[in-house]
């Protein structure tokens, strides 16, 4: 009896331990070998936790499963920030899901270098040619495609036409000096010119990045990424221009502690009509509505203004989107699912929900929302495209850009120190 009890306790203990070890994974599903006919499960990690994409995703998966009875799609939808932690943990353990959300750039490159991502150039055929160049740009690593886009967008100024009118401003500014003048006019009229989420840091980096683009052109950014030298004149000047703006104190009260989409945050300030403009991506109108009241027809969009004497064109767009990559060990069916999602008829449905913007050639007419339509048209006529800096560069460099620019806006770093700090981080990568 005694022995029995002891071993029972031991078995229980070891079961506990083994259970603890066993449940570590996301990728228990496929393995590479998958024979036709037998049941295959494809794990699909996405960030479709909010409408309209939530419902769209569920329906798309249902339809795919109906067409392919032998394939089961395991839908793992995780909220944006939580997704980033989750995928980080999984990739650090040397695994990747079968099909998963990616934003391309430096993070994708690290995953590719670790051998976790499937190179799509071999199996793709004519498929890759259906996407627009701007949409594909983020997913090329060393000249090879490792993911395909589902969504693409750009950053620009969203402004409150009523408040602009109230301050006596007739047209949206097209140069930086006009923008500065308008900020002064708005302040004189007692209106907060801009909303900014200082706590979240990434909204601040849009200003610096766009200024660098307008001053030095896309080549300057590309070159800096390669030579790891951000001390060049465009970057320092971008810092000086941003400091010139920040010195006017254009942002809402308490902006240094404000988050983007929380109550009292940047989107809510803008959505409740308490600030005249915000520099934000294509999702701005919907977040303004969900965090605040939304300003309806008063909302307008203008691209980031040109800087006098700058090399960059005002039609160069800065932004990013989202796409899907395939894990290196995923079954062949994963590719089939991804092709289904990005095939013209299916993707049109996604665009029509208003949740994503066109990534396929000639898809612009599927956009129904007037605000998004403006963005889609700007993108379609863009002469160049730059991915968000915190994604284009390796994660450490991107974060340093965000951190340093936040300090520049807060007044604790000079433009030269910002350029220096980013360069140092880039060199140490």
């Amino acid at each position, binding site marked *: 009896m005694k022995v029995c009890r002891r071993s029972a*306790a031991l078995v229980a203990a070891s079961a506990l331990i083994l259970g603890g070890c066993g449940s570590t994974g996301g990728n228990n599903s496929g393995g590479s070998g998958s024979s036709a006919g037998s049941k295959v499960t494809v794990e699909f990690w996405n960030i479709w936790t909010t409408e309209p994409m939530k419902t769209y995703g569920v329906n798309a998966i249902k339809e795919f499963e109906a067409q392919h009875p032998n394939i089961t799609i395991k839908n793992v939808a995780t909220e944006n920030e939580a997704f980033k932690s989750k995928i980080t943990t999984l990739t650090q353990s040397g695994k990747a899901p079968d099909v998963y959300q990616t934003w391309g750039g430096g993070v994708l490159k*690290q995953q590719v270098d670790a051998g976790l991502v499937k190179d799509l150039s071999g199996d793709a055929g004519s498929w890759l040619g259906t996407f627009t160049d701007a949409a594909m740009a983020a997913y090329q690593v060393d000249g090879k495609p490792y993911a395909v886009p589902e969504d693409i967008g750009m950053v620009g100024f969203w402004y409150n036409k009523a408040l602009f009118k109230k301050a006596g401003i007739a047209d949206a500014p097209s140069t930086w000096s006009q923008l500065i003048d308008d900020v002064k006019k708005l302040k004189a009229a007692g209106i907060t010119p801009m909303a900014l989420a200082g706590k979240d840091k990434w909204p601040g980096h849009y200003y610096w990045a766009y200024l660098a683009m307008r001053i030095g052109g896309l080549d300057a950014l590309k070159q800096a990424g390669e030579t790891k030298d951000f001390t060049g004149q465009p970057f320092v000047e971008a810092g000086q221009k941003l400091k010139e703006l920040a010195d006017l104190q254009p942002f809402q*009260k308490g902006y*240094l502690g404000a988050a983007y989409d929380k*109550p009292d945050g940047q989107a809510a300030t803008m959505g409740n009509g308490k600030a005249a403009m915000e520099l934000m991506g294509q999702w701005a109108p919907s977040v303004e509505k969900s965090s605040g009241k939304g300003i309806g027809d008063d909302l307008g969009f203008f691209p980031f203004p040109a800087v006098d004497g700058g090399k960059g064109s005002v039609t160069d767009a800065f932004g990013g989107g989202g796409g899907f990559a395939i894990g290196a060990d995923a079954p062949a069916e994963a590719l089939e699912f991804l092709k289904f999602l990005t095939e013209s008829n299916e993707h049109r449905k996604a665009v029509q929900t208003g949740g994503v913007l066109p990534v396929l050639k000639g898809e612009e007419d599927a956009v129904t929302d007037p605000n998004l339509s403006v963005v889609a048209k700007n993108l379609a006529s863009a002469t160049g495209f730059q991915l968000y800096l915190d994604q284009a560069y390796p994660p*450490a460099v991107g974060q*340093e850009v965000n951190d340093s620019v936040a300090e520049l806006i807060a007044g604790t770093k000079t433009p030269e120190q910002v350029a220096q700090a980013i360069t140092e981080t880039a060199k140490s990568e």
Partner: protein
Amino acid sequence: MTRPRSRGRLRGFTTVLLFLLPALVLFLLLVVAPIAVAMYTSFFKWNGLRGLPTDFLGLDNYTRAFSDPVFLGDLWHGGVLIVLSLLVQLPMSLGLALLLNQRLRGRAFYRLLFFAPYVLSEAITAVLFTMILSPDEGLANQILESIGLGGLEWFAEPSTVLLSIFVVMTWKYFGFHMILYLAGRQGIPEELIEAAKIDGAAGWKVFRHVTLPLLGPTIRISVFLSVIGAIQLFDLVWIITDGGPSHASETMAVTMFQFGFKRFQVGYASAISVVIFLISLVFALLYQRYVMRRDLEGATTVLRDKR
């Protein structure tokens, strides 16, 4: 005669081993192994991907930490929070505990009320105070403005953010320390207090020479918990400010998270984690050795004497 005894001892040893084994395996696997791995990776430049680290740096990650103004700022913030906790939070808890030890109406209700914040999770506390102390529409500023005082920027201003974080910390934890002190105070026999009073000691003198010394063990453990908590502070800061504005509220744990999971510099983040571990360990050992020695008598010392 010796044989059965040694057999008995052996059996005893086996039993002990079998009982310890599950806990020991879990401890080694979940506590000791991660610490060892963190120490190992802290000597490398490693992004956490691509298998095991190979790019050996020696002590570079450590010298980098101690020359980085952000990390030095973390140490300073930790120190400020510890000093404030010891000078403000704990005396306040002690005062409340002594007050709630008196007979007064609704005593049980007050005890419950003051302990309630401790029951909330840190995340909920953080979200709650983000709203209350919001500079634009927050409750705190509306009250301040309605009584004619200007609103503060709380978490949005580098010079006030650390104090604001401390306010939240105090709100969350004073009830916990209060309950500790209350329990300690109730463990003091009334006879001692009465005896002191008969000897002619009044209010303050009773407190100074009877209550306070007898509360010693409780105070020492409460200081210990408070300091360790301040060193490892993470959740509140992460949710309320992310360490900003301009790193003004960043703590060591926040920096570690930033570098480990945002910048993928896992080697450097490991080095920071090892520093946090060592600071906590050295503090705990010294504190137990020199400050809590008397309290621990009868636990460790006696056991050693008997062996």
